[in-house]
């Protein structure tokens, strides 16, 4: 089966690097987008989202990506994010707290910061495998 190289990089670390058959992420304004091997060159800005990397052996790597960029070229997908975390490393309790706090604030007023906090919390919880 054809595969491509995937790299998820944050400034402090390389979160994930390896072969995969598909990557699903979400761009600003464009909604979810999936990349498969042989995708044409692509450059996009990302939203807070739950990014899924489908590995060659059938398993899925879940990553919470809080903004950033995706670049696809030469059968290689690089996701650059200044804040990203692996789903297995998400602190679920903290994310739940953040979610309820953001929801509480949004109930009273519309606040851009709270909106992005909420979507961050969603991305985290989704990546951790918890449906919200």
């Amino acid at each position, binding site marked *: 089966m054809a595969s491509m190289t995937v*790299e998820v*990089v*944050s*400034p*402090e*670390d*390389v979160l994930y690097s390896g072969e995969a058959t598909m990557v699903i992420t979400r*761009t*600003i*304004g*464009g909604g979810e*987008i999936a990349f498969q091997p042989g995708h*044409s*060159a*692509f*450059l*996009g*800005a990302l939203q807070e989202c739950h990014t899924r990397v489908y590995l060659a052996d059938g398993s899925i790597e879940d990553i919470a990506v809080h903004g*950033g*960029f995706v*670049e696809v*070229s*030469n059968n290689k997908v*690089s996701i*650059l994010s*200044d*804040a990203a975390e692996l789903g297995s490393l998400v602190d679920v309790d903290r994310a739940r707290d953040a979610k309820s706090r953001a929801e509480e604030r949004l109930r009273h007023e519309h606040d851009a910061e709270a909106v992005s906090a909420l979507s961050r919390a969603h991305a985290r919880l989704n990546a951790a495998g918890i449906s919200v």
Partner: protein
Amino acid sequence: MAGGQERILKGRIRSMQATKKITRAMELIAGSRIVKAQQRVQAAVPYSEQITEVVKDLAAAGGVSDSPLLTGRKEIKNTCYVIIAADRGLCGGYNAGVQRAAEGEIKSDVVDGKGYEIISVGRKVESYFKFREYRLGQTFAGFSDKPSYDDAKAIGQHVVELFASGHVDKVELVYTRFISAGSQEVVLRPLVPLSQDTVMGGDGKAGSDDGTGSDYEFEPDPTTILETLLPRYIEARVYAALLNAAASEHAFRQRAMKSATDNAEELIKNLSITMNRARQASITTEIMEIVGGAEALGSGDRKSVRYIDFSADDGFGARSGTDTNNSEGIRPTTSNSRNG
């Protein structure tokens, strides 16, 4: 007094030993942190390389570089210096090197009649420029030995704001580049505007696979991507500078503390010699005093006995008589005859 001097020396040696322990500990700590800081520098390389690549691809593909962050301004009136050094001292010439380089630049700007803006990173930089009555802008401190990406983000956002508002027309980074544990150098690097040279001169490698730029699909449009990307790029550059500076700081501190430890050792050695000499001298003096005292106590009888001995005419005469007798045979008769 001799004993007093010895005590003073002992005190000095003890305090020297305490100092040595501290400097030795700091040396070891810095040494272990260099390794960690180096790893952090290495870990940041992929991100900055990739983001540099993306910026280049975008610039090549879009031709949408009307953002002042990219094109720069025609007239440069105010230059902003982001000066990165340490929060603490005890690191040899680390702070001084950065400060001197920055101050030189600022002075030449002032001579040219241009304005400046100082963004200090590290407590030492802040106090240095404040003491010399420079006009300080925003100050950042408290993370020089272990900077996080959030710190870089705060600095980057401030820089972008300053530039976007037209307050400054150029931003330069002054920091110490970490080459290896043995060598570091103070460098001055342009940060904004991101001209072609600036991007090429960054910490990322020069791209070889260009030409693919025009084939890119963009989502959303290139301009929007570029606008969100540029601040990220600046943050990444600041972050790389901070990490380099932190690693350099540890390297400088280790070297400084190593020589301090060596110096303390040398001092302790010299002081110990002086102290031992002083102790020996005081012991000798004491022995002399005891001997003298004992002699003084027993002097009454012995002296009188000697006087009796020496003053006895027959004794003296008998001695000289025997001496001369031994040396020659004829003379005794003459001497005796003389005496007689």
